[in-house]
């Protein structure tokens, strides 16, 4: 489940409530059949929480760090050891197991934090902006890690304002704005913003592409890099345009929707709010 909203919308607050760390002003919550208000300890055992900003104990090694948290979740000593090794392997930090935590890069710390959230095999994973500050490669790795947890049966809740990222990760998207839920959608059923979408086209010879587009009679915009942007109602229109361009002797090398579906939906929702 993806949680989308602008900064200050209440994503982190919601996750804190679900993690049993913050009491809501009104209302209640249920996590894995437990009430975070009255059974915080039970909820902590069920939930793996990774905050958007967190510190690590710089003077510990990676292994010590994870083992510490294993022990604090009352895992048995041997269990902690195997779990630690397993997790370090999972997040690709096994080679650094005996280095101090402060030698890690930001992305590596983020992965260590992710491993930490998994140490007690939580049934529910709450990840608050897990990809912030990560490079594209690390982001893809993280996405795969999160998906794998979900495939193994964990309920995962990820918050982000980076929309494509959630589109790739989540099955359900929840929009949050100003502390309220403004929409829940299955990933395939996201509103696209009233039909027309902008598509960017590139070809080997950009000049020829522009001429061909003119020849087939579409309205288009020429971007600063020479590629063109066309407004099309649906994918049938896209296929149609491509066929006609090929007939003109220009094969498009890239046809990319401008702004992913989510972004469109998000912007639309934001506009409606205002």
């Amino acid at each position, binding site marked *: 489940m993806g949680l989308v909203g602008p900064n200050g919308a209440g994503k*982190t607050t919601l996750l*804190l*409530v679900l*993690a*049993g*760390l*913050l*009491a809501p002003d009104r209302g209640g919550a249920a996590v894995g059949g437990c009430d*975070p*208000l009255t059974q*915080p*300890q039970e909820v*902590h*055992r069920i*939930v793996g*929480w990774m*905050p*958007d*900003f*967190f*510190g*690590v*104990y710089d*003077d*510990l090694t990676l292994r*010590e760090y994870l*083992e*510490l*948290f294993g*022990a*604090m*979740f*009352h895992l048995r000593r041997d269990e902690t050891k195997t779990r630690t090794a397993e997790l370090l392997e999972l997040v690709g930090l096994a080679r650094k197991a005996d280095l101090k935590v402060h030698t890690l890069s930001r992305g590596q710390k983020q992965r260590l934090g992710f491993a*930490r959230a998994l140490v*007690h095999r939580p049934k529910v994973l709450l990840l608050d902006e897990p990809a912030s500050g990560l490079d594209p490669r690390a982001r893809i790795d993280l996405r795969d890690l999160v998906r794998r947890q979900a495939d193994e049966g964990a309920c995962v809740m990820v918050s982000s304002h980076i929309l494509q990222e959630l589109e790739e990760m989540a099955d359900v998207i929840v929009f949050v704005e100003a502390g309220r839920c403004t929409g829940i959608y299955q990933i395939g059923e996201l509103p696209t913003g009233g039909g027309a979408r902008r598509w960017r086209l590139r070809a080997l010879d950009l000049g020829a592409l522009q001429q061909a587009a003119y020849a087939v009679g579409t309205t288009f915009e020429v971007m600063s890099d020479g590629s063109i942007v066309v407004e099309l109602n649906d994918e049938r229109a896209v296929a149609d345009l491509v066929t006609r361009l090929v007939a003109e002797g220009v094969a498009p090398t890239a046809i990319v929707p401008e702004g992913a579906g989510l972004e469109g939906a998000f912007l639309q929702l934001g506009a409606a709010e205002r």
Partner: protein
Amino acid sequence: MTALIMSELRQRMRGKRWWILLGIWFAVLLGLIVLIRQALVSTSPDHDLEVGVVMFASLALLVLALACLVVPALTATSINGERDRGTLAILQATALRPWEIVAAKFIAALVTTAAFLAATIPIALWAIAEGGVSLGKAAAVYLTLFGVSAVLLAGAMGASAIVRRPALSAVLAYGFVFFLTIGTLILYGITMTTVDYDFDGSPPDYGVRWLVLAPNPFVVLADAAPASPDDQDDDPLAGMRYSIRQARDPQSYQIQSFDPQTGEPIFEEEPEPPPPVWPYGLAIEAGFAAFAFYVATQRLGVPAKKLPRGERIA
């Protein structure tokens, strides 16, 4: 909880700051004791003074004085420091209960304090070797030092839980120390202005004013130190003990007359040994410590009901 204690200690040990502080601590104490011994030996060359007794008493008082400086420095940011670094909320989200987090931090700090005390043992052994101090007395004094330090520690930890900013919590922690050491003395002085003195020779009634002074760490230390049977006059601890017990029970030290030949005081009857003050002092201090502990636990409680303005859980 054990894991958290061990990890706290491990992190402290790995930091350079800790070892530097320990080194300075030992060097300063050793230096001062060497100077005091020189002074004692040169002022009483024929050794009618119990050098060992004075050395040991000075050591105990100096250790306490320095502990008043060092203990808050070691603990005054233990909780809000973690909050600042963004590690506290993760601890709160584990299966540990709030009191376990507080207790783990407290015990780790206590072990650190014990290490500081242990570092002074060689100096204490030197004083004992000079004679006049029994091992039992030394052990009792160290035990008291440990107990009093634990109270200062608890206060500093409470401060670090209440106050968000490390600099301010340090001020609050030192404020607590200041209140116990100097504040009680000032308060006592103020209460003494209300004593009625009769001039018929009967001792004034100080009432329960001694209770104000009782939680003073130095009073507790001096009062709890066992008296050595011989030569009490030289022992600074005995002097302090005499004063505080007299404040509690002036009757017991009432001197009736002086022997004309020797000038020694004669008691009409052998005075009852006055009751000790330190159990009361330690009990009051323990009350402060328990309160600090309670407040710290409350502040770490999850789910947090109300946050002070501008504060984030994580």
